[in-house]
């Protein structure tokens, strides 16, 4: 093993200098994927044996799987051997313990992205576990959270300090072999966030992580695990930005949520990764598996997402409603402009009695974009008294875009109530003209109509996020009409 790790050391010392990418020396593995790479990642991170075994099992399973082709997205095939599976800021041995110790260039990059980390964290009282490339480099407000007994740290840290929680919960919601991208993530995930809220604790602040992709050609494989124990509650915000670049980048994250008896988890996302230019060149490929399990009675998991970025979005935040009286919610706004392709939706699996789910999905397509809602509501025989309400609406801007809706409903309990409403409307004709006739500019009119369309989702977002989301939407749809 030692000779191998020396090889890795040598490889890690390679330096990258790629144009506009922040000039921080990245420690990266060379492109390619085999068991050696999986083992190297685990070794670099000094992981316990159970985790290495788990990764290898996932990798071997992944080798037997094929990339899914059922989604309404098209892209040039991904060469999985042409991707580097590990990249970390240098010198992990003396990792910074406070912001002062963080590389100032890194902080400057955050500034450029409009994320004044320290200020924002202090003013808003938000603890930020910022993920830069693959390793967390700054964590704030840890002490306040620690006082409440809340664990909020990078995934690697959790592996080191709370291996028993990782071993107990990892992969219990999204099994290692769940799907092609989840299996890949399970084999090579580099870092991510971990949250544990102990029984009876209401997390004293909103938890927030800003994800950021930086090192060129490094696929991002984040792993997030959030556990709310009996009677606990937590609200988690995830926001993303990425710099301009012209090469497609693969992102295959996995998020697992576990809610025990009477626990509540609210997970909000604003996703704004580089969508490619107006001709569709470049942009992030975002293949994400997000799933929450309402494991306990009366538990609740709520997903809210505003998806404006990425060249390709493949993402279905789902709820497995096992516990009696548990509740699953999914509120989504997905925007696709220019040549963006979004295939997103949710799955609500009703297993427990009297489980309830609500789905509100709003899709906006502009330019040449394609926007697909794909949702499954499954009510198992055990789910007596289950109820679902689904509403999906599509808004088309211009004549070249498209919207698709694929609702799959499977009801195997005759007492269940499932309601579905869907609409497709076109902007630019009557509504736009009405606003213009009142003297409102085309741009303002579009913003108004779009935010009106999304209102029922935005109101589910935490306040400051809702404002951000609204701004993001107007930027994303700039010039889409008029």
């Amino acid at each position: 093993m030692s000779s191998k790790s020396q090889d890795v050391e040598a490889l890690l010392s390679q330096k990258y200098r790629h144009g506009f990418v922040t000039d921080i020396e990245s420690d990266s593995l060379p492109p390619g994927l085999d068991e050696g790479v999986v083992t190297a990642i685990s070794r670099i991170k000094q992981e316990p044996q159970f985790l290495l075994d788990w990764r290898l099992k996932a990798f071997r399973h992944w080798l037997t799987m094929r990339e899914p082709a059922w989604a309404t997205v098209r892209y040039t095939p991904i060469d999985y051997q042409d991707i580097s599976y590990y990249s970390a800021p240098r010198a992990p041995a003396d990792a910074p313990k406070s912001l002062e110790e963080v590389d100032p260039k890194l902080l400057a990059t955050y500034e450029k992205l409009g994320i004044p980390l320290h200020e924002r964290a202090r003013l808003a009282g938000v603890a930020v576990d910022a993920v830069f490339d693959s390793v967390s480099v700054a964590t704030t407000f840890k002490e306040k959270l620690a006082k409440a007994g809340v664990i909020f740290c990078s995934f690697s840290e959790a592996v080191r300090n709370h291996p028993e929680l990782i071993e107990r919960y990892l992969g219990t919601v999204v099994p290692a072999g769940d799907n092609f991208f989840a299996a890949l993530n399970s084999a090579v995930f580099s870092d991510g966030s971990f949250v544990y809220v102990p029984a009876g604790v209401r997390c004293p602040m909103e938890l927030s992580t800003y994800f950021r992709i930086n090192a060129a050609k490094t696929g991002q494989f984040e792993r997030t695990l959030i556990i709310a124990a009996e009677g606990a509650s937590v609200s988690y915000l995830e926001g993303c930005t990425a710099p301009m670049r012209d090469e497609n980048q693969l992102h295959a994250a996995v998020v697992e949520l576990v809610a025990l008896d009477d626990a509540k988890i609210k997970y909000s996302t604003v996703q704004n990764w580089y969508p490619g230019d107006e001709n569709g060149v470049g942009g992030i490929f975002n293949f994400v598996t997000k799933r929450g399990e309402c494991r306990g009675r009366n538990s609740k998991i709520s997903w809210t997402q505003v998806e404006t970025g990425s060249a390709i979005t493949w993402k279905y935040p789902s709820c497995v409603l096992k516990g009696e009286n548990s509740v699953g919610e999914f509120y989504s706004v997905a925007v696709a402009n220019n040549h963006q392709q979004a295939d997103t939706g949710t799955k609500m699996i009703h297993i427990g009695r009297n489980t309830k789910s609500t789905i509100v999905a709003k899709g906006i397509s502009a330019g040449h974009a394609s926007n697909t809602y794909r949702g499954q509501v499954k009510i198992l025989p055990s789910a007596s008294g289950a109820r679902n309400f689904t509403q999906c609406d599509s808004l088309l801007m211009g004549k070249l875009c498209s919207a698709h809706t694929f609702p799959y409903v499977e009801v195997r309990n005759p007492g269940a109530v499932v309601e579905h409403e869907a609409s497709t409307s076109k902007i630019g004709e009557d509504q736009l003209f009405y606003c213009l006739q009142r003297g409102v500019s085309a741009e303002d009119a579009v913003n108004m109509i779009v935010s009106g369309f999304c209102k029922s989702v935005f109101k589910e977002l935490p306040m400051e996020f809702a404002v951000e989301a609204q701004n993001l939407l107007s930027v994303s749809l700039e010039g889409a009409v008029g």
Partner: protein
Amino acid sequence: MNLNTGKQVLTISNLCATVAGKDILKGVDLEIRAGEVHAIMGPNGSGKSTLAQVLAGREDYEVTAGSVSFDGVDMLALRPEERARAGFFLGFQYPVEIPGVNNAYLLKAALNAKRKAANLPEVDAYEFLALIKAKMKFMQMDESFLSRGVNEGFSGGEKKRNEILQMLILEPKLAVLDETDSGLDIDALKVVAAGVNSLRGGEHAIILITHYQRLLDYIEPDRVHVFAGGRIQKSGDKSLALELEDRGYDWVRGDRVA
């Protein structure tokens, strides 16, 4: 009623327009002065609503000949929002619903867009609220309208009241009301008429497009025009409307479009 003292607000000369290659307007001539109320009547399909849409600048209609001068400006050269800011208002026959967009919000944006174009300071939320509440009271509208979406879930009558409310806030130089009376019960009709009459006079000119004499019982027009076959066939004073009510449109009908 002195018809000749007001400033010329609108001059339409030989206006021709097509939609999807089909001739709809075939040489419309019309002049309106400030302070006047004109009624345009005519059978279905005669092109009345097309005239309203062309004046508003709807893209689907192509002007093939003629000119429109609005307050001394070539109106056809302006974009729809510029026409609105210059003081043109269209009361829609079928006001569209815009779900989730607050009524008051749209109207405040509209008013401020107009004020900005005229180099006037924007009204703030308090001033606007005072203004809109007064006008709503006049239009006998419930205050819940303020927080509802634009025309969202409104009855036909509520939509039409909302159009008039918007007109009263925006105080246009020229308002074209396209079948604002259709679908109204008698009480709503009286309220709408009172709203229109309150704007009447001064520098405001109004065109009422309607099928029925009924509206004109409450809003007395200065001039009545009979529209058929894509142009004005006959003009007269308010007695013309009564005559139409008795005799139908056939006696003035020209080369009606198929």
